[in-house]
């Protein structure tokens, strides 16, 4: 075989291999979606899945025995997740945006580069470690697992994402925008808050959505902080449930295993939709 054909064959095979293996990467996504969808849709459309709390093992067993759909749902988890994610978001947004503005405004300062470094470091901290820390900071002093502790963990996880997306977006706004604002005699805070921030809205919003979608399915840190609850719990100082925690409970309880899929389906729909919306906004809105 002459070298020319060899080279051509090599070229073609690399092409085929790259396409094949890149394509194969899509398989797990669709396999997971398919499996969760097939096994979970039936329970999900039962009308009380979203309004009833977790059934007891016994109720589930009785229903299983008579071949019925397991009664009850994940309302307690939904309430817990919403409560904790909302609290975390409301704390993380102002801190994250202001810190991000600081990093964008003081590009060259030494302190800013330290904060930037620590933000990266924080983003890499495994969620379970964040859970341990939230346990030490909130659960031990309050002497109780709580939604508060859970949202503390989630806040810490969201912060780096919001900070970096704010910083990146603010940096993309041309400096002349700031100068134009100041040249009109506008004060510095007003220029930042009313001229720069609105221009950066799309990028920051995307960052917030991605941060929410990152923490909404978190399980490990919540096991160490929120613990779980079988009833709907609005008191943030008491242990609370979360959809992801319920999946973990269902997985560990042989009688509840069929609920695992519907809860996962619910979580997946939520997370993936958030992801897609965030990407869409990022594409359209980017920077004005």
């Amino acid at each position, binding site marked *: 075989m002459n070298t020319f054909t060899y080279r051509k064959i090599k070229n073609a095979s690399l092409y085929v291999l790259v396409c094949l293996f890149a394509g194969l990467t899509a398989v797990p996504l669709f396999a997971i979606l398919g499996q969760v969808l097939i096994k979970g849709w039936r329970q999900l459309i039962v009308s009380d899945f979203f309004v009833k709390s977790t059934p007891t093992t016994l109720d589930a067993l009785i229903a299983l025995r008579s071949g019925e759909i397991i009664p009850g749902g994940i309302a307690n988890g939904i309430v817990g997740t919403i409560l904790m994610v909302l609290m975390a978001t409301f704390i993380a947004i102002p801190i994250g945006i202001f810190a991000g503005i600081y990093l964008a405004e003081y590009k060259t300062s030494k302190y800013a580069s330290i904060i930037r470094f620590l933000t990266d470091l924080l983003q890499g901290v495994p969620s379970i470690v964040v859970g341990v820390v939230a346990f030490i900071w909130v659960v031990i002093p309050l002497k109780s697992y709580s939604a508060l502790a859970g949202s503390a963990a989630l806040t810490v996880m969201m912060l780096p994402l919001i900070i970096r997306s704010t910083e990146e977006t603010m940096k993309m706004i041309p400096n002349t925008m700031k100068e134009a604002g100041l040249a*009109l005699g506008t004060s510095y805070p007003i220029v930042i808050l009313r001229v720069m921030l609105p221009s950066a809205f799309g990028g920051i919003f995307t960052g917030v959505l991605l941060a929410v979608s990152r923490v909404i399915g978190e399980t490990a840190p919540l096991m160490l902080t929120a613990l779980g609850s079988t009833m709907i719990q609005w008191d943030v100082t008491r242990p609370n449930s979360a959809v992801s925690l319920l999946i973990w409970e269902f997985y560990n309880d042989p009688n509840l295993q069929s609920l695992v899929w519907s809860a996962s389906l619910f979580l997946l729909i939520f997370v993936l939709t958030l992801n897609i919306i965030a990407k869409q906004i990022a594409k359209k809105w980017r920077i004005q």
Partner: protein
Amino acid sequence: MENTIKENILTLKDVCISYTPGQNAVNMVTADIQKGLITSIMGPSGCGKSTLLRAINRMHELYPGITITGDIKLNNKDILKMNAIEVRRMAGMVFQRPNPFPTLSIYDNVIAGYTLNGIKKTKDEKDEIVENSLKNVALWDEVKDVLQKKGTFLSGGQQQRLCIARALALKPDILLMDEPTSALDPIATNRIEELLVELKKEVTIVIVTHNMSQAARISDYSMFMYLGDLIEYDTTKKMFTNPQDKRTEEYLTGKFG
């Protein structure tokens, strides 16, 4: 010119500006700028034109490490000792690239100086300011039906006129322009030049330009700067016909720059 009564609006005395200690980007500049005229600043790249112009608007404060000495008096008030915000309302600024606020409509861009500064105006007053300012820059007829559209939808030349309108809306005493037409095509440039000559009645203009024929066409007085020094400052006519300094002559005849 010699016969008109001189009224100085801006006086520079021994102005030195440096980015790095011991190295003046603007060196001992002294000049009086007259009210109601157009003064152009020329000179090769890096000679300190922008640095000087921006200092009049206190823009240098945005960047740490810039030191400035000497006196800059606007309307007989030392701007270096005043509140920066007051200075910036007296001295409007137009930049090289048109930079309307991207999130605001054309209308809101024009009155941005009021809304951002929290100056309350009634709807009628605002309408009047917007209309007058846009008429001043000859943009009114082109945009009066699309005032609620984003300013960034306009063409480059229109955007730049919008930015001039935005600065004029605050009724500044002096308008500082840093190469305002260098990002525009010849037709848009032409319109802005005509506009500036019209605007002389309303506001004193200081314009930095690389375009010598532009300076010759529109300005009454011209400055020539070189390596931070103000080499020559005279009526435009005199400078272009009979420059006193060799470097000015070389620059104007295209020997360098």
